[in-house]
């Protein structure tokens, strides 16, 4: 008997389930074929014919786009957590970003039908959900759009009496879970997030080291490597060129100040959201706070929040295991568990 090896490639009849986290800074995709990818949420089109020759592509994404930014018209379509409606290029950028993400996980030459659950920033979910749905519709057989913190909550199984704080680049999204799909009242968005830290750090360093030569990309890298709140054991030192020569600079104070600049709004929103909830369950929610998104990686943040919120009652703050893929994995989990009839009826 001849054993026929089953092809790993998906066939035309097969469905590929994907969970997409469309973020302001990074976008990620998880597929049920085990593939996971992420890109920076940048889309760039060559500025002119010469740029097109230089970059060698009609369109660039993520890191590659950032590297060639001088030759490109760059778009970060979900900046501030919403698509700028009416801006054709921003809408197109969202569409291309999603197309690109899907192409990263879809086996080549595959006609598999895509079924997607897309998590988007909470504010964008409110404002652009129809536009987002249209953007993804082209590449998928069926799709669901959900708010990002909700997708994270679903992924980590925080379905009841939990508060998810998703700290992204453009927004910090809060979402209370209480055994049902969160309503608008269960969610909050604060606009002082990762980008705000960058701006603050940039301003503080410019003030302290006027002779140092740095840009916002470098600042973002410093933040990703050294961000912290509270205290830190070792001083933070980075290399910044001065008059062309790489020079060590201490940025501990500035880093602390910049990172802590987002805390007041975050604490206030957390307390306010919990206080508005049914008093019987407030303790339970306070004891189940989950930090997600890139900002959850700020050292000392969970402990700081636990201490401050703990003043109002016992609090427990934890960080999702995989902040980069937390949203995409949650969205994929939703896709996997979505009943067949919901897909087909949609």
């Amino acid at each position: 008997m001849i054993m026929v090896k089953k092809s790993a490639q998906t066939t035309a009849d097969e469905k590929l389930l994907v969970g997409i986290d469309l973020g302001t800074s990074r976008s990620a995709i998880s597929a049920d074929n085990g593939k996971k990818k992420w890109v920076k949420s940048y889309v760039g089109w060559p500025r002119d014919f010469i740029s097109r020759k230089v970059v060698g592509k009609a369109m660039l994404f993520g890191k590659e786009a950032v590297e060639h930014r001088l030759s490109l018209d760059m778009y970060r379509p979900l900046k501030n957590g919403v698509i700028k409606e009416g801006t054709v290029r921003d809408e197109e950028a969202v569409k291309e970003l999603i197309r690109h993400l899907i192409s990263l996980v879809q086996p080549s030459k595959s006609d598999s039908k895509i079924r997607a659950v897309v998590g988007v920033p909470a504010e964008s979910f409110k404002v652009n959900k129809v536009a987002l749905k249209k953007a993804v519709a082209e590449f998928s057989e069926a799709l669901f759009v959900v708010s990002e913190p909700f997708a994270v909550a679903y992924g980590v199984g925080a379905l009841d009496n939990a508060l998810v704080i998703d700290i992204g680049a453009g927004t910090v999204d809060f979402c209370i879970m209480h055994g049902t799909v969160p309503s608008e009242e269960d969610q909050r968005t604060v606009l002082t997030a990762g980008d705000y830290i960058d701006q603050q750090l940039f301003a503080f360093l410019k003030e302290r080291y006027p002779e140092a030569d740095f840009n916002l990309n470098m600042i973002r890298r410093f933040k990703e490597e050294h961000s912290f709140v509270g205290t830190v054991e070792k001083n933070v030192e980075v290399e910044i060129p001065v008059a062309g020569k790489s020079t060590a600079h201490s940025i501990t104070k500035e880093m602390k100040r910049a990172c802590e600049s987002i805390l007041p709004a975050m604490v206030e929103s957390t307390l306010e959201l919990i206080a508005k909830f049914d008093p019987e369950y407030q303790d339970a929610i306070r004891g189940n706070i989950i930090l997600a998104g890139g900002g959850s990686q700020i050292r000392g943040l969970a402990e700081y929040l636990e201490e401050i919120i703990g003043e109002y009652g016992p609090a427990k703050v934890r960080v999702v295991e995989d902040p980069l893929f937390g949203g995409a994995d949650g969205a994929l989990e939703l896709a996997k568990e979505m009943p067949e009839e919901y897909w087909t009826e949609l």
Partner: protein
Amino acid sequence: MHNAESAKIKDVILEGVYEDNLTMSAPHVKPVRSVKQPGYHSATGVLTVLLTTVLLILFQFIVDPIHQQSTNPVAFSEMASILPWAEIVHDQMAGPSTVQQASYVVDSTPSPVTPFNAQRLLDYNLLLNHDQVRLSSVFGLDVQTIVIDPGHGGRDPGAIGSQGTREKDIVLDIALRLRDQLTQSGQYMVLLTRDTDTFMSLADRVRFSNLNKADLFISLHINALPQNQFNVTETFYFGPPSDLYTLRLAEQENRGSELLTGDFKNMIKKIGDVLKEQESATLAATIQHSLFSNMEKYDRVIADNGTKIAPFVVLLGVDAPSVLVEISCISKSEEETNLNNPAYREKITSSLEEGISRYLTQRHTQVVKGDDNGKKISTNNS
């Protein structure tokens, strides 16, 4: 959490996600074809409209000879005295005897075309609930009086921007400009609920509009959002709220309505007024379309929230088709600066006037069902 409990919660959540997305999938606007449009194939619909129209004209000869002249355009405000089913609706509320009287008249009228179940034909539900029939079109109802209602005023400043700009001042200025623009055609009488900085309760605004037999009522407001980075334009007409945000906004604008519960009960009866709903939805959609497409020239990031249905007291109480326009957001600093510029206010006024004029000129075409987005308006004028 136990597995069984968790599975149950997941079922609820997945169903919720499905329902959320199902509403998102609904088309934005359902531009309904004109009864005169060639592509309209519903024979029952055409027959219903045609026969009903003929019969109703005949009734007017029988019931009230004065209305033999009613082929001329009639103002909305006079509708109640002219439309037989409006009387039937009213009478049904009053008691069964008058309904019988109306039925008696109906039964005695021979069908002019084919043997047809006149009893069924005269079931007003047939006409009122037929979403492809625009009543203003069927009866050539005209617009004579337009009431513009600048929100807030006097001790009620409305929303206040960070630079101290008050909603009441901006909307009053726009209302005065709009009055000037609309009266230029000489076709309409345009009245303002207030033309100075005075306080007026919502109940008084409703009374003013109804006393003056308004044919259209347009309430002007400026919004304020907690996220001061966003600018949004949206237009509402009366109905159950389309979302929680809308409900909150309605609560905010309804404060100090000075309405008694008794008044409210009478007012709630008016929800069934199909004509008002049809016209309000269409007016809202045309204004919103015009406003957004013009305003995005000045603010590229302004969001179009489309038309929404919301339970604003002022919209419920007014007899005429009525809308409430939230022009933009004073909470956004740049927008507040713009609103302080008279040239910008003039542009807003022109956008509003353009929307109203477009509504007035294409009133005999389609019904726009209430939905969350008024961007796409069919322009298939008959």
